[in-house]
């Protein structure tokens, strides 16, 4: 081992990350090189002192987690546990209210944050702006490439065809907008819009697949779900049963297996006409 090599490995050695034979080699060099031995001694003293002083500071009472923080986290966990117990059983509206109520105790959930994104998507969809592109799903994905900061995977739904797509936005989020034509009950054709946008900061409270939540705005039903940083909003005038059926049968592009996720099935049917958070596994 040369003096230069020793200099470069000094911390690896001092941090105890060297292998036994490498340590022997380094120590052999130290035994015959007073200059390196002095360097190791100084660096070791520096490392020890920095650690000691830093830890002294970090362990000072003022640097400990405040009791109030501990209590806030505990109370949030308690609320989250209660919320989980009812998840899937309360009306979407009631769930939103519960979120808002719980939100009083912590800063994270901004009341009405999701409602804003639901409404924005419904209004955008209602405008029926002209398409920028009319292609099939795989080519659409290629078309979106480079136009948005995230990649867009275009889901396919049963009994629907892709009508077209355009760049759009949901509030402050740049979004891909994909329109589908679906044949609904009774043979009529209905237009479905899907917004796909990135939400790295988790501004939009949406559950991860396989949970999908339903809400309504301006006469449209809006299904919302998230796949990690990507949020999907599906806007249509289909009713809850149809949406649920369509999503359950669709090839939704997401990165986790639906099969492995244990989600218990409901023991009673939800009252008719109520909008429910749905799980794709039911």
């Amino acid at each position, binding site marked *: 081992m040369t003096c230069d090599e020793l200099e470069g490995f000094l911390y690896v050695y001092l941090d105890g990350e060297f292998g036994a034979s490498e340590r022997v080699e380094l120590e052999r060099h130290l035994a015959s090189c007073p200059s390196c031995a002095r360097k190791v001694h100084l660096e070791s003293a520096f490392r020890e002192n*920095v650690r000691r002083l830093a830890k002294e500071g970090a362990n000072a009472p003022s640097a400990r*987690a405040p009791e109030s*923080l501990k209590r806030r986290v505990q109370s949030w966990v308690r609320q989250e546990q209660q919320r989980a*117990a*009812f998840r899937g059983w309360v009306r979407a509206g009631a769930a939103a209210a519960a979120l808002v109520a719980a939100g009083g105790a912590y800063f994270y959930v901004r009341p009405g944050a999701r409602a804003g994104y639901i409404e924005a998507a419904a209004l955008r969809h209602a405008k029926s702006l002209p398409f920028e592109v009319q292609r099939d799903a795989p080519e659409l994905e290629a078309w979106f490439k480079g136009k948005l900061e995230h990649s867009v995977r275009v889901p396919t739904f049963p009994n629907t065809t892709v009508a077209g797509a355009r760049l759009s936005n949901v509030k402050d989020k740049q979004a891909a907008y994909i329109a589908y034509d679906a044949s609904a009950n009774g043979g009529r054709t209905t237009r479905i819009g899907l917004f796909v946008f990135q939400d790295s900061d988790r501004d939009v409270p949406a559950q991860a697949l396989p949970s999908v939540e339903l809400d309504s705005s301006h006469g449209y039903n809006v299904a919302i779900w998230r796949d990690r940083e990507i949020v999907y909003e599906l806007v249509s005038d289909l009713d809850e049963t149809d949406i649920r059926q369509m999503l359950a049968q669709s090839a939704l592009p997401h990165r986790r297996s639906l099969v492995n996720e244990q989600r218990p099935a409901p023991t009673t049917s939800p009252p008719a006409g109520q909008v429910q958070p749905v799980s794709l596994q039911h």
Partner: protein
Amino acid sequence: MFNLQSSSRMKQEFEALALAHLDPLYSAALRLTKNERDAEDLVQDTCMRAYRFFDKFERGTNIKAWLFKILTNTFINRYRRRVKERSVVEGIDRDAVHERFVSRDATDVAANPEQYFFDRLLSDDVLRAIDGLPIDFRLVVILADLQEFSYKEIAEILECPVGTVMSRLFRGRKLLQKTLRDYALGQGVCRSESTGAPVDLSDYRQRQRTG
């Protein structure tokens, strides 16, 4: 139907495992965000995410490393943009440190300059010097020297190769040293040491095997 019992077990398990690490999480968050309010928010946010993803945590593996991974990810994604980086110079109150070197006893200094230097440093100086490091170096110094994670754990937390951890730690510590030493140097307490450069460990191991 949702199983209330398993939910309550999970809550207890989470509280026992995660809340035990609230102090180290908060202390690291303070170094990252540089203020108490953001540090509290960051830790709270980290705990919420940890709870939501608790089913993804592999039981029996290192919960502290797992929590720190969430903390650093959350910080990088959410807070980093908001936190105004202070420069190294601002990181330390020059006058306050200077003061402690002015009244030095010359014989003490000659006998053991390094010791003299460190005896006059306060933990606050070190913490503020750490706060002044650029974020990539600060992260590894916090994880290695304040939290004493191994290189392998740090590599997992930051999702980068071990070699990157080594070189960032090398440069981070040298930078820290320079900041702290500059005050002493100005007073002639310490000699300037060569700063050197990190050496690639896998290259070295390869050379040892072949040569």
